[in-house]
């Protein structure tokens, strides 16, 4: 942050903002806050608004949440697509991969287990 630009500036630390003067940094956070508030309001108002077809509401909420996480990452954590951010984005991508495997895999396996499980009475009979 305090380092003079131009020297050994090969990478950016995550969360590090490039501020020439305080105003630029403030604008980033203000835009982030505005977008986050808008997306939060949309999430909370959507279910009762009737704008979205009922069965599609869960998917719409998940899309809004992913969009808001993106807003937080870019405007608050300053994870960007610039080349000096490559390491941070690669680590994030790996984290997202593990999260998707963990959540998706658990739901997939548990749904199949539920489907394939014998009714409870039969299990009780077998145990006798």
């Amino acid at each position, binding site marked *: *942050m*305090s*380092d*003079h*630009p*131009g*020297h*050994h*500036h*090969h*990478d950016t*630390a*995550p*969360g*590090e*903002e*490039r*501020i*020439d003067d*305080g105003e630029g*940094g*403030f604008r*980033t*956070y203000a835009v*982030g*806050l505005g977008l986050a*508030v808008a997306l*939060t309001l949309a*999430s*909370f108002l959507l*279910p009762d608004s009737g704008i979205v077809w009922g069965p599609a*509401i*869960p998917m719409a*909420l998940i899309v*809004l*949440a992913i969009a*808001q*996480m993106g807003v*937080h*990452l870019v405007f*608050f*954590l300053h994870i*960007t*697509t*610039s*080349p*000096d951010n*490559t390491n*941070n984005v690669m*680590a*994030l991508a*790996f*984290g997202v991969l*593990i*999260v998707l495997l*963990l*959540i998706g*895999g*658990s*739901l997939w396996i548990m749904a199949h287990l539920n489907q394939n499980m014998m009714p409870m009475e039969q299990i009780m009979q077998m145990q006798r």
Partner: protein
Amino acid sequence: MSATVAREFGDPNRVGGSRKLPPTWVVSGRGEGGPAPKRIVTGYGFWIFLLSDIVMFSAFFATYAVLVRATAGGPDGKQLFDLRNVAVETGCLLASSFACGMASIAVHQRNLPRFLLAMAVTALFGAAFLGLEINEFAGLVARGAGPTRSAFLSAFFTLVGCHGLHVTAGLLWLLTMMAQFVAKGFRADIIRRFACFSLFWHALDIIWVALFTVVYLLGAGT
């Protein structure tokens, strides 16, 4: 710093292309120029920790999603969740995150009074969030919907409570950061610690976005 460099500096995403940059700026990807500054190594290490923390949360999310219908004849999310309370909690965390951003700008400007003010606002909104959450938990337990009532409620209290514990730890960290800047000034190591703290605080907000969507909004709707 020449005017050209200043102009390039106003282009953090390098949309103008890196060929116009001074040679020392071009990212080679071959580790040229020796090890990265400590500021970057520290931030990167903490980023890895945060991602591992998010992986841990994803395990709790998966557990919750698997157990959400296992109410054992007890109340489900639709009967229990008060979305107005959750909306206020969300507002508190967002305001807190924004104030934390103001604090990091104040650190950049080496402005101690402004930093302390921004951190105090961050702490107040964080504490308000925590108070609302504790109030909600106490209300649920009083209604007989404590963590022992059903697998759904066990998973709920584990997931939401784990986020609450993180906020509690973050609040303690926040107060020590205020004390450290007062006692030691804008020293490089303290600034690195603060950079880690602000990453932590913003990351908690990201987890809360997933939480209010998956647990509260989806839970109250289905």
